[in-house]
């Protein structure tokens, strides 16, 4: 992993931690900077210079959402964790909201074919 990616992962963790009682460790099925394709997990990872969220269901079916900037992924992650009320200053721009609502991908291939 390059230094910039590591820095961004730490920024995401730190911003989320600021608004989580205890800290992020309580969310054992949430992963920053790492895509774990096993059931009932969620998190975010960077691909092709952009950030994406992911959610897997009980049958291991994956949904990816993005691409987001660093600020956008912090808010998107707060939504995954159901703590977005505490992240008002990170709220999506109109364009990011369109991406959040409309970009639901189910494979890396779909991401790569749709996001240039």
């Amino acid at each position, binding site marked *: 992993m390059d230094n910039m990616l590591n820095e961004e992962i730490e920024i995401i963790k730190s911003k989320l931690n600021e608004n989580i009682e205890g800290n992020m460790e309580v969310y054992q099925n949430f992963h920053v900077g790492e895509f774990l394709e096993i059931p009932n997990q969620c998190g975010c990872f960077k691909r092709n210079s952009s950030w994406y969220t992911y959610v897997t*269901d*009980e049958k291991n079916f994956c949904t990816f959402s993005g691409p987001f900037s660093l600020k956008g992924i912090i808010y998107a992650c707060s939504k995954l964790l159901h703590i977005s009320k505490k992240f008002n200053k990170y709220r999506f721009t109109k364009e990011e909201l369109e991406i959040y609502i409309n970009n*639901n991908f189910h494979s890396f291939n779909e991401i790569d074919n749709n996001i240039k």
Partner: protein
Amino acid sequence: MELREQKIAFNNMSSEDIYNLVKNSSESWAVEGYDLITPDNAKDFVKIITNSTGKTSFNLEWPKYGGYEPITISSIDDLSGKIPVSRDGGDGGYTMGFGKNKDGTYANNSQRAIPKGSADVNTGTFDIDLYKSSVDIVTSEGSMSSKIQKLIELGIDDEFAEDMIKDFNNWKTRPEIAGENNISEGIALSRKSIESKYGYYGNAAEWNVGNVKMSGGAGQMNTIYSWGTLKQSGIISDIGKAVIN
């Protein structure tokens, strides 16, 4: 090795070898998460697929038509009031059990046709009327902002209104809705005409695999929103946990 060759090699393995291969892999969930899958029957349960990253992966050979007995599939439009629901899985899934047995217990895993002995399930009370009112808005013509405004007027927080619209878009692309052997194909078998926009309910189909017999019969729903969004929006309340066997 190409996927086709990997599938051939996999299909030529013994059940015990498949069980051990999966158990010792990074995807051991496919057998360890389902304790009724054993070295004797793993070959009947486990399949090899291409996963979302394009690599080969293990999963279960899940029943067709979203797990429903086709003749029982109906539209959630037919339901009303508040009903008990339960779900074995995280916030990201769109399927749940509904109703309870006569003795007040939730359906067990045999009734749900899930190959495991027991589970901790999430429980709650589902407000069907609020759900249907929100679906009417989310599935209507109009701009995203007008839908969000109408959902707010319905009493839904604006942040969760966004999630509802997102979930509906996602639901339409899910395998049980748009994939092979989807729920609509099950409905077609029974030659019924069903209003699909509210999602579906019915009974889990019997599932017999190898030496494992699962009775089916549990009430089951597929909603257009994920469990997490249903909770956050207040459509599911009285959140709790229960152990089923």
